[in-house]
C-alpha cells in the first residue's frame, strides 16, 4: 500500500463547552511539507481545534488520522511523542526552571550514571538558542526572560523534537520583525524537510509570506479552505468576518485616522529621567492630552519597563512622574491609578486577567471602589458598565458570568481593555494592545485609541507591529538599551526612519534629537 498522501487528516471534529459550540464538524487535511494557515476571528475555535487535536481536550465527535492511523491522544505529551509538536498560544513552559531545562524538558541528556548532564544541556541550549538569535544565560530561570524571548524558547523546543507536524498558535504575537524573520526561516527549513506546519496568526502579511494553504474558521465551522494565493486579503477578511466584501473594503483594513489635534497645552504626563538599575537609564517621555506617543525599539530596549515604571509597577531609583501637574510618589500602582494612569500589561495571562473570576468581575475589578457605596458593590452599576463594554468592544463570551480563563485569547485582551476604559483614565499606557486580536477587533481597538485621543486622553502606545506603531502614533520615542536614542515627529514618523534610528544611523536631516541620557 502506498503511503498516504496526507500526514494528518482531521474529520468532523466537534467540541462543545457549556454554552458554546467551539467546534462544529471541522475538517482539516495536511500534506507533508505543507505550511497551512489557520485563521478566524477571536473565539472562532482555532486554539480549541489545536487543543482537541493534541489531547488537551477530548472531542465530542470526529476522527483524527495521523500518518495513516487512527489516533486519539490522551495528553499533549502523547501527541508530542507521536510526532505532533505544538507551541500553544499561552506560553506553557515552566517559569521557575532554567532556560536550558525548559528547552530539554522531557528529553534531558543524561550522564552515564543516569543523572542529568547539566554541562551538556547548558552548552547545547546556548548553541541552539543562538541560532534563533536569542543570547541569554541559559542557567537563569525562564521567567527572567521577556515574553518574546520565551516564545523563541518555546519555538526552539517545539522544533527540536522529531516532529512530523509542528503547530504554532500565534507564535509571533510578541516577536520583533527580526525574530519573525528567524521564525520564517525556521518554518521554511521545516517545510523543506517535509514537515507540515499549521500556522495561526492574526497578522495577514505573515500568512501571505509563509503559508501555502488556508483554512478559515468562523463560529466553530470551516467556512473556507484552499490555496491562500487564490484569495485576496479583502476576500480573506470578508470570509473570516462573514461580511460583504464591499463593506470590508469601505471600512479599509487599518483604522487609524492619522493625526490627532493634540492641544498645544501642558503635557498630561511628564516622566523625567526614569532610572531603574540595569533596565532604564534616565528615560524621559511626555504626552499631551489628545496625543498618541509611540514607544519604538527592539525587544529588551526598555519599552515595557518604561510603561511599568510610569505606572508605579516597577520601583524607580531616580526620576519623577508628573500627571496633570501633580507629582506621583514612585512605586505605588494604586497611587498612579488614582492619578489617572492605566496600564494594559504586556503579559496578559499572568499579570492581566484574573482567570478564575468572571468576565463581569474582571471588567469591574479596578473600578470597584467607584461602583460601590459604603464598601458595598452596587450590582446595578456594575451591570451597566459591564454591558456597555461587552457591547462596545464586542466581547464574545457565553455570558458575563463566564470565567475569563475560558475565553479565547483575543477576548481576554478585550476584557482587560474594558477594565481600564471603565476607569476613565487620563493617560492610557498600552503595551501591545492588539496582540492576538483579530483584524476586525484590531481595527476596533485602533479606532478606539483614536477616539480616546480625540476625547483628550494621552496615550502611550507600545507595539511590535511597526505598521500599527507608525500609523497610530503622532510621535515616536525610540528606545535602545534602556535609554532614549531619538524621537520621530511629523513627516519623519515612518517605518524607515524608525528602523534606521534603532540601528543608530539616522540621517542627519531627520528630526531626531538626542535626549539627555544620564547613568
Amino acid at each position, binding site marked *: 500500500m502506498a503511503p498516504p498522501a496526507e500526514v494528518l487528516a482531521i474529520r468532523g471534529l466537534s467540541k462543545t463547552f457549556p454554552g458554546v459550540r467551539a467546534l462544529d464538524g471541522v475538517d482539516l487535511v495536511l500534506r507533508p511539507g505543507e505550511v497551512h494557515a489557520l485563521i478566524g476571528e477571536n473565539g472562532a475555535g482555532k486554539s480549541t481545534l489545536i487543543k482537541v487535536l493534541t489531547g488537551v481536550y477530548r472531542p465530542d465527535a470526529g476522527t483524527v488520522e495521523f500518518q495513516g492511523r487512527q489516533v486519539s491522544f490522551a495528553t499533549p505529551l502523547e501527541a508530542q511523542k507521536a510526532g505532533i509538536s505544538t507551541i500553544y498560544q499561552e506560553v506553557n513552559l515552566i517559569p521557575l526552571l532554567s532556560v536550558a531545562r525548559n528547552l530539554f524538558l522531557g528529553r534531558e541528556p543524561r550522564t552515564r550514571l543516569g543523572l542529568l548532564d547539566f554541562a551538556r544541556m547548558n552548552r547545547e541550549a546556548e548553541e541552539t538558542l543562538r541560532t534563533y538569535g536569542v543570547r541569554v544565560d541559559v542557567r537563569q530561570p525562564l521567567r527572567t526572560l521577556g515574553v518574546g524571548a520565551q516564545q523563541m524558547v518555546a519555538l526552539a523546543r517545539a522544533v527540536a523534537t522529531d516532529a512530523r507536524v509542528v503547530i504554532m498558535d500565534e507564535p509571533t504575537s510578541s516577536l520583533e520583525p527580526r525574530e519573525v524573520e528567524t521564525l520564517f526561516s525556521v518554518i521554511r527549513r521545516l517545510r523543506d524537510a517535509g514537515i507540515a506546519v499549521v500556522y495561526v496568526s492574526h497578522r495577514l502579511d505573515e500568512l501571505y509570506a509563509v503559508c501555502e494553504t488556508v483554512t478559515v474558521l468562523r463560529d466553530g465551522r470551516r467556512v473556507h479552505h484552499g490555496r491562500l494565493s487564490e484569495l485576496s486579503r479583502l476576500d480573506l477578511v470578508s470570509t473570516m468576518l462573514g461580511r460583504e466584501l464591499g463593506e470590508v473594503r469601505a471600512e479599509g483594513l487599518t483604522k487609524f485616522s492619522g493625526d490627532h489635534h493634540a492641544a498645544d497645552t501642558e503635557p498630561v504626563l511628564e516622566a523625567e529621567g526614569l532610572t531603574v538599575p540595569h533596565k532604564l537609564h534616565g528615560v524621559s517621555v511626555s504626552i499631551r492630552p489628545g496625543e498618541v506617543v509611540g514607544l519604538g525599539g527592539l525587544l529588551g530596549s526598555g519599552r515595557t519597563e518604561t510603561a511599568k515604571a510610569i*505606572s508605579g509597577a516597577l520601583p524607580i531609583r531616580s526620576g519623577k512622574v508628573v500627571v496633570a501637574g501633580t507629582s506621583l510618589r514612585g512605586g505605588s500602582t494604586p497611587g498612579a491609578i488614582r492619578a489617572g494612569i492605566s496600564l494594559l500589561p504586556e503579559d496578559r495571562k499572568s499579570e492581566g486577567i484574573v482567570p478564575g473570576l468572571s468576565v463581569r468581575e474582571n471588567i469591574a475589578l479596578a473600578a470597584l471602589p467607584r461602583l460601590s457605596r459604603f464598601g458595598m458593590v452596587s450590582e446595578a452599576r456594575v451591570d451597566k458598565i459591564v454591558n456597555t463594554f461587552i457591547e462596545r468592544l464586542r466581547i464574545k463570551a457565553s455570558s458575563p458570568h463566564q470565567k475569563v480563563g475560558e475565553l479565547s485569547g483575543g477576548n481576554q485582551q478585550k476584557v482587560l481593555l474594558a477594565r481600564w476604559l471603565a476607569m476613565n483614565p487620563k493617560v492610557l499606557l498600552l503595551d501591545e494592545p492588539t496582540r492576538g486580536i483579530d483584524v476586525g477587533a484590531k481595527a476596533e481597538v485602533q479606532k478606539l485609541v483614536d477616539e480616546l485621543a480625540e476625547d483628550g486622553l494621552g496615550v502611550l502606545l507600545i507595539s511590535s507591529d511597526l505598521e500599527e506603531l507608525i500609523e497610530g502614533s503622532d510621535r515616536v520615542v525610540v528606545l535602545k538599551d534602556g535609554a532614549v536614542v531619538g524621537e520621530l515627529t511629523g513627516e519623519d514618523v515612518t517605518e524607515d526612519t524608525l528602523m534606521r534610528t534603532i540601528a543608530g544611523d539616522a540621517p542627519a536631516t531627520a528630526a531626531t534629537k538626542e535626549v539627555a541620557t544620564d547613568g
Partner: protein
Amino acid sequence: MAEATVRTAAPLDKARILQWLQTYGVYAGVALLLIVNIVITPHFLSAENFRTQAVQVAPVIIVALGMALVIGTEGVDLSVGAVMALAASVLALYLGYGLLPALIAVALFAAVAGLANGALVALLGVQPIVATLALMVGGRGIALVMLPQLEDLHNPSLASLGSGDIVGVPYLILIAAALAVLIAFVVRRTTFGRQLLAIGDSRPAAQLAGLPVRRVLMVVYVVSGLLAAVAGVLATARLQASDPTSLGNLMELSAITAVVVGGTPLTGGRISIGGTVAGAVLIQLLTATLIKHDLPPSWTQIAQAIVIVCAVYAARGRGKR
C-alpha cells in the same frame, strides 16, 4: 476503529460529577449522616441532642469563617488555636474589671496577633504557612506565661453568655449564625470581598489592577484573629474556666478541614461560606456518630482523613477538560 469518537462521554461526565461533588457534596454528606443517625442512633431526634451538637460545633464554625477568608487569598492561618488560648488567658486576667473591658482587651490582643501575621505575609512576603506557624507556637507560649494553669471563672455575665439562650436557642448558636451571615455578605456583596477573591486568584494581576493588596491581606488576617478570639471567649464562657493549655488545640486543623470539605479550594480565588458551615457540621456529626456507637477515637480520625481525601479529590477535578 473510531477510537476518537468513543472515548468522549465518560470523562466529561466524571468531571461534571466531581464538580457537583465539590460544590454540593458536603450538603449531601450532612443530609446522609442525618438520615443514617435518625435510623440507627437512639434518641438522636431530640431537641436536646441537636442543641448539644450545635453548641459544640459553634466555635469551630466561627474559626472556620476566618480561615475561609484566609484560604480565599491563597493563604492559611495556623495560629487560630493559639489565639483562642490567648483570648482565654487575657479574658481571665482582665475579667476583674468587668466583662466588657475584658472583651475589649481580648479584641486588642487578637487584633495585634492578626496584624503580626498580616504584616509578615503582606509586607515582608513571608509564606503564610511559615508566618502563622511562628504565632501558632509562640502564641500559646505567651498565653501560658500570662496564665500558667486552668482557672475557674466566676462571672455571671460570662456564664450567661456561655449557657444562656433566646427562646431555647443558645447564644453560641445565634452568634455563630450571625457571623456566618455577615461573612457571607462581606464575601459576596462588598468591594473588599471581591478584591479578596481577585488577590487569591492572581496576585500579580490584582496588584497591577491597583487593588490595595497589602491592606486587604492585613485585614483578612486581623479578621481571622478576631474570629478566633470570639471562639476562644465563647468556649471559655461555656466551660466557665480559662484553660490556655488545651483550649483550641488542633483547632487550626478542624477549621482547615471544614473549609476544604466545604468546597473552598486551597488555591484561593473562591470561597463558599455555606459550604464551610456545612463542612464543620459534617465533621461534628461524623465524630458524634462514631462516639455514640462506642468506636474508639482513632476511628474518628480515620473517618476525618477519608472525608478530607474525598474533598481534595473532588477539588482536583474542577475546571479540567
